[in-house]
Every structure is written in structure tokens, then in C-alpha cells.
């Protein structure tokens, strides 16, 4: 192995070690990704985690580039590249899953407090997505309909509610697994039914019953 690479490795080690705590950010991002994929509604954007992940990916890209420049053994480089690819996949998939949800529930999100769960760029995306959709639907269909049926939100002017806005279905069921918190969850309306994660481990529960615990990270969706 080239001796020049070892110095570089030691320097990088310190930097990376600092960012690795008991659980790595990769692990945290994986959990955020799983929760985002499994939950029916859009969750709060993990701003700090995404920021840290981007920085780590950047750092790793630089490291790999350095290695390529200084003649490190190709096997080592390809392994670092694989680690990097896995991290990037997670981050991209996380962001994409959110974009899919935003596209699907644009109007609902922009009208409720869910708007605050979006990052700045996501809010920009949502706004543009909503505008394009409105423009398209107005031009192609709505403008040709009789007066009173031209709203994008209501079926007709006489309906009281905005009955054409797709909303996430919170009444659905999700799979969840115990984590270090080992919560006990009330699952029924009456409160006499409990799901004890320490004992039961894995289960299917109504999303509304564990919604808050998902938000606070005390229950993991799988």
C-alpha cells in the first residue's frame, strides 16, 4: 500500500470521528427515510440532519478524490466509493419521497400548518407545483366548464367545503417496530387497549394513535 495515503487517512479519521457519535448520521437518516416512506403524511423536514449529511457526503467525495490522486490501492477507493453511494442513495431517496408527497398533496399542504414542515426549497417547489397544476387544469378543462364549476377546489360553487383537495389518509394503518424508547401506546378509543413495544416488538397500529410518537421519534415506522 502506498505510504503517502496513510497520512491522509489519519487526518481524515479525526474529522470523521468527530461526526460519529453513538449512532451515526447514516443511521439517523435511514430512520428518517423509513419513517417518511411509511407515514401517510409529510413529516417535519430533518433540516440539521440533512445539512450534516450533505457536509459528510462532500467531505467523503473530497477524500475519495484525494485517494484517487495519490495512488491509493484501487480496492480501498472502490470500497469508500460504495460507502458514499449508499449514503447518497439514502439522502436522494429521502428527498424524493418528500417531493412525491408534496406533489400529491400540494394544495392541502399549502393550506395547513404542514407548510411549516417543508424546507425552503421544498416550499418553493410546492408553490411552483401548485401554480403549474392550477394553470394546466384551468386551461385544459376548468375554463371550458359552465360557470360555478370552475374551481379547482370545489366540485361546484354550491358545495360548502373544499371537496376536491386530496388529503393524506391519516386513518390508515402503519407497521412499527420498537426502538430504545420502548413505549406503551394506547391504541383504542376507550384507552383500555395497550400496545407495549417492549413486549410486542412489532405490530400494525392505526397511524393516528402513534402520530405524535412518530414525530418525536419515540416509535419507528418500518
Amino acid at each position, binding site marked *: 500500500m502506498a505510504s503517502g495515503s496513510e497520512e491522509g487517512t489519519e487526518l481524515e479519521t479525526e474529522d470523521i470521528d468527530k461526526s460519529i457519535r453513538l449512532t451515526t448520521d447514516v443511521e439517523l437518516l435511514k430512520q428518517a427515510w423509513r419513517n417518511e*416512506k411509511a407515514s401517510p403524511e409529510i413529516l417535519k423536514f430533518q433540516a440539521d440532519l440533512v445539512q450534516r449529511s450533505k457536509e459528510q457526503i462532500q467531505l467523503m467525495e473530497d477524500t475519495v478524490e484525494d485517494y484517487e490522486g495519490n495512488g491509493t490501492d484501487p480496492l480501498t477507493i472502490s470500497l469508500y466509493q460504495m460507502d458514499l453511494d449508499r449514503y447518497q442513495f439514502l439522502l436522494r431517496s429521502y428527498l424524493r419521497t418528500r417531493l412525491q408527497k408534496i406533489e400529491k398533496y400540494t394544495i392541502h399542504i399549502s393550506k395547513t400548518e404542514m407548510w411549516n414542515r417543508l424546507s425552503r426549497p421544498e416550499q418553493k417547489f410546492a408553490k411552483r407545483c401548485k401554480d403549474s397544476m392550477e394553470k394546466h387544469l384551468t386551461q385544459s378543462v376548468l375554463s371550458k366548464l359552465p360557470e360555478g364549476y370552475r374551481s379547482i377546489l370545489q366540485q361546484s360553487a354550491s358545495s360548502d367545503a373544499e371537496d376536491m383537495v386530496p388529503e393524506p389518509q391519516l386513518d390508515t394503518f402503519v*407497521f412499527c417496530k420498537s426502538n430504545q424508547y420502548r413505549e406503551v401506546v394506547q391504541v383504542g378509543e376507550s384507552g383500555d387497549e395497550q400496545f407495549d413495544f417492549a413486549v410486542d416488538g412489532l405490530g400494525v397500529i392505526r397511524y393516528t394513535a402513534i402520530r405524535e410518537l412518530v414525530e418525536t421519534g419515540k416509535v419507528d415506522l418500518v
Partner: protein
Amino acid sequence: MAGQSDPHISLFSAAEIEFVAEDELVEIVPNISMEPLNFTCGDFGPFRPQMPTEVPMWLAVALKKRGKCVICPPQWMSVDKLTQVLEAERDTEYAFEPLPFHYVELSRLLFDHAHEDIPDLYMVRTLIEDIRDVRFHKLESSLKLINERVNAVKLKNVSAMEMNIVRPFLVRTLQSFYKLDSPQMIHNPVTTAYRQAQAADRGPRLELRRRHMIDLLRR
């Protein structure tokens, strides 16, 4: 409106489940010397010939593909252990034996990439296939127990892949029961005679409905 019907949003593909499984640690014996690898997902190594060390599955497979290590099959993958598990699985009607959450994916990865490292390969492979069949059959037949509105279903010791396979069906079933069997639908003041007749028909079932949570695997 069908929030869950879009497969791209809420379902994990088999490949994604495997991706998660590839982070599980496994022991390897390298046949090369390599400095420690300081990955974003943790530090591994140093690698010295004949010195066993723990690495994530994906790293083990990558090294194995290049002929740089021998993978030590995990303890639960021995003939003895698996025989015990299979017997226990056959003895119980609804309970599942504790196996690693990703046992299906891990064993598959090892069979595909490291079959020469597994002692008694043929036996191990057959045992795992049998265990999978028995467990899946149990899971399928336990789904029949869901015949009313429930708030939660316990699935103790069910593995990732097993869970992912029944997910679409199970979620839709629970949703339908939840919606159609809701107290509002049944107890609302009914106006038409037809509806009254229906409500009456449902009478005897009210007693059953007291149990809202179902434990598929421990009855």
C-alpha cells in the same frame, strides 16, 4: 384520495429491504492486509490475514466478490440452531420463533455470494427454505383471524421480508374493516327500513366487538 394506494410512496421494494439488511454486521476473515476504513457508517478494520473482524454485510459481500475474505456464517445459521427453530415453528400454531429481523435477506445474500463458506450448505439451505415456508403459511392462516374492526395487530418476531409481503393486503384489510365496522356506521339513527334490518342483523356481533386489539400470534 387513496393515500396508501400509490406504491411509490408508502411501500418498500424488496431491493430497499435488502439495502437495509446489508447494514447488518457479519464476521469475516480477510486474506489481505488493509488499513482501517473510516466510513460514514462507522469505522471498520484494520484488516489482517486470518484475523476475524466485523463488517457490514455489503462490505463483506464486496470483499468476497473480489476474493479477499471468507465470510463466517452467523450463529443462527448452523444446522443445529435451524433444526431447533424449524421444530419449534412446527410445534406452535401462531407464535413465531425469534430470528434476526432480516434473516431472509441475510441468508439469501450469503447463499448467493458466499456459498462455499457455509458448512453443510445443502442442509442449511433446505432448513431455511422450510422455516420460511412454515412461517409464511402460519402468517397467512393467522390473517384469517381478522374478521372485525381492530385497532392494532401484534406481529411479534415477524421478519422484515415477511412483513413487507403481507403489508399491502393487511393494510387494506384493516382499513376496510375499520371503515365499514365503525360505530358510526352501525349505531347511527337509521331511517330506512332496509338499514334497520341490517343493523338488527349485526346485533350478535356487538359482543365480539369488545376486543379491538388482536394478537395474531399468541392464541
